[in-house]
């Protein structure tokens, strides 16, 4: 691809941590659900999970939350599903709601550096099949970049250069 796009630092697309939903690992599943409902309007659907020292531990998204409401849900056969969902909300889930999110989060294996360029980051997003990736500078988490924004940057560039 063209040099111009490669040189774009990922910082440009960064959503700063200040603006992004995050919680300590001991927050409950219920709190995470509430948070993501409030964050819905901003278009965010992942909670970053930190420890007490603001060290990044993992993340929790819609998928993991729905899975967490009833851990057995995923194991159902397709026929069982339609009758099951309302029961789940009433019984099993209330216990789950009180559990800390560290029980459900998935760890972050990869991060990128603030000075990395868009192409490297988009490669990693595709390679690992993820939607967001945390951006660090030294050991500090500056925020995240989303596939969503990368897509627009890259395809916007392609359309522009076709003109």
């Amino acid at each position, binding site marked *: 691809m063209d040099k111009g796009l490669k040189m774009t630092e990922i910082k440009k697309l960064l959503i700063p*941590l*200040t603006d992004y*939903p*995050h*919680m*300590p690992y*001991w*927050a409950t599943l219920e*709190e995470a659900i*509430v*948070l993501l409902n*409030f*964050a819905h309007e901003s278009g965010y659907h992942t909670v970053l999970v*930190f*420890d*007490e*020292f*603001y*060290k990044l531990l993992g993340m929790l998204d819609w998928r993991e939350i729905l899975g967490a409401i009833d851990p057995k849900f995923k194991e159902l056969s397709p026929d069982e599903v339609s009758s099951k969902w309302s029961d789940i909300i009433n019984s099993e889930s209330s216990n789950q709601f009180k559990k800390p999110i560290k029980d459900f989060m998935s760890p972050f294996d990869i991060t990128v550096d603030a000075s990395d360029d868009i192409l490297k980051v988009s490669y990693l997003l595709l390679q690992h099949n993820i939607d967001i990736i945390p951006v660090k500078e*030294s*050991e*500090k*988490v500056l925020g995240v970049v989303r596939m969503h924004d990368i897509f627009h940057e890259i395809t916007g560039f392609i359309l522009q250069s076709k003109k």
Partner: protein
Amino acid sequence: MRRLLKIFRRKVVVPKPVLDEGLPFKERYLYFKKLLSANNTVLEIMADMEEKLSGEYIFDMNYIRTSCSKLVDSVQNIIVNLDKLSKGKYPNLYFAFAKINSKIEATLTNKTDIPVTDFTIPFDSVTKEMVNSVGGKNANLGEIKNKIGLPVPEGFCISAYAFKRFIEFNELKNKIILNSVDIVDMEGLNRISREAQDLIMNSQIPPDIENSILNAFSELSRKISGRASSPTASVRSSAIHEDAQFTFAGQYKTALNVNTDNVIEQYKRVISSLFSPRAIFYYKSKGFEEDDMVMAVGVVEMIDAKASGVMYSRDPTDAEKNDIIINAVWGLGKYAVDGTVSPNVYIVSRDEPRTILEKTTPVQEVMLKCNPKEDVVEVEVPEEIRATSCLTDDQIKFLADYALVLEKHYDIPQDIEWALDENNNFFILQTRLLRILKEKPVKNIQAITSGYKILINKGQIACKGVGAGKVFFVKKEEDLEKFPEGAVLVAKQTSPKFVKVMNKTSAIVADVGGLTGHMASLAREYNVPTLLGTEIAMKTLEAGKEITVDAINGNIYEGRIEELIKAGKRENPFKDTAVFKVLRALLNNIVPLKLIDPEDEKFSPDYCETFHDITRFAHEVAMREMFQVADSPNIRKRETVKIEVKIPLEIYVIDLDGGIKSTSKKITPDQILSIPMNALLRGMMAMEWPGPPPLSVKGFFGVIASTTMQPHSERLLWEPSFAIISKEYMNFNIRLGYHIQTVEAFAGDNINDNYVRFLFKGGGASIDRRARRTRLIKEILELTDFDVKRTGDVLDARVTKYDKVTILKKLGLLARLTAYTKQLDMTLFNDAMVDWYIKEFVNKYYTEDWE
């Protein structure tokens, strides 16, 4: 102000260490308490100043000076008390203080120098470099005449030095006191302004200045006698900072058609307008000080204009457009800028060949002309030219060329006043920099066409943006005094007087007026969405009804349209002002905290770079001094006792009198006799604590292996908490997470002695999340009658004079709240989240009898 300066210049005397043995505990405690109190004051002032940086507030240099002065006092207080407490262990703290203080002082003393010159200076010898002698407007006129060579009227300046002499001659400096006035207090502003203006009008112009003015006037008359049978002049303000970096558009008086008999009186009138309420407001809100308020005056040949107006060398609302904008009216130019009539508007391309892109010529019924003898008079525009263009196409193009010549010379877009005399000669009356909204001020949002009722869909956009609020009609100047916060100002005509409410109004709508008027410049400067020339707003809109003004697409809607408001959210209007820059520069020496880790070798006075560093350092070592827990060989630990308790806190107490029933070094909670301490501890123990248990900390400042550089110091998170207690008293400094919190209480049998005080500051998350947490605490505490002051992430709450049982219940609530909010700042993504947590807390933990 003198007094303040004196405080800043206070000499730093380093006391010598006293070598005698330990102070009695009670005396140490006294110093400690004083230090804590000063510490809280510092934190509060810092939070308040930081909050001002958000741009939602308007403040002046007086605010900055007063805050700095209080801050300096309190920091000194901390150092002095630490000095006594530690018996002179930290002399270098005085040097650190002096170093920071001198930086602050330097930032605060930036003065305007008024050079000594003649009292009057003819335009022939003026250039733009002479701004401090002749003021901005005169300096530019001189520059145009002598350096650029475009036609300007003849005239002379009455210098800034003459003004200074006038003030000294009448000893006005000590009589006009502006510092005490709060710029948002309009009544106070009006009163002070009236007093100052009366003082000037009742003062005498020194005879030597009067002579100089009269001589210069007769010389001027001689020069222009060929052009006019009875030569007259306009007397115009030319304040030192006017037309330079700040527009001051229309803030001062101009006297038109003045002759030799009344020139002295009019001179006084013009300089007194330096102290009009709106000029004072403008000055102060822009960060100037009294000493900066100096006015030179221009006495300029009166051109009895056939037509006149204003032109902009670029479109100020859109930097990307390549247009020159010319406004014109019949007669004198005052009506073009004050909004009395809707002017002709010509849009001319900047590119060669110059083409007229747009031409609007509304009907003009009245105009301003010179009276034969003096002053000006409104007359009817002759029927035959009412609807015709004031300028011919050739004249428009000719004038547009002038705009580009001026812009090229100054190398920045210009805002120009011009006049055309009866012989069709153009004159430039004034030029100054044109404020252009940086880049695109707001996104070009789509107009909404369905679902909402459009009340008005015409008008000229003078400042882009979207604002919503209740309609408030301004029909006369007094109406401005009652102007409600957040309302939309609706008026028949524009007026520069509206500047007084530009910090309050969410949008401005006027039926008459164009984007080159004074008020339009001010609206852009304060970034208030403004729609002018709406014609029917006064008729169509209803007072008190909510409307949304879309000054991007030029529509006014019924009701609040959140999607438009959100999309058109405006940039902070005050962040570019001088006063803001001063505050920001000052806070650099005040707020950043570099001394974080007490175990770091750099945790010492030598590394204190800000007042916050000093405060943090002093607080930390004061704690050690007080509790004798420092890691040094001469520790005496006999006075502190550890409480073994199953909550994530490491608590040490020091008993003043009857607070514990044991002599052991470690006690359990049931050995505590202190009534308030007991209530608090029991409340804490009954809670389920969020977060991890405390790490096992060896010793008070035991080392925790930390191999990687963490965003936050682990040590900070696990610092021990200390309480000073007696049977009825407690001062408990709780270290929990990254914030600092103190609970102080007295719970005895006499209601009048009883109180609870709760102080809270800081956190590990970003400032907005920390501030959300203090809002959460505030709202909960207010449910139970605490009196709560909150500024950003600092909170100070108290209740007094309740019976013992009620006091203990309130301590119970504080205990629950303490556990509940631990590191909760991290989670507080937005205000809705805060509301949810408040509800949760109230449901789960808020009952009067909760134990």
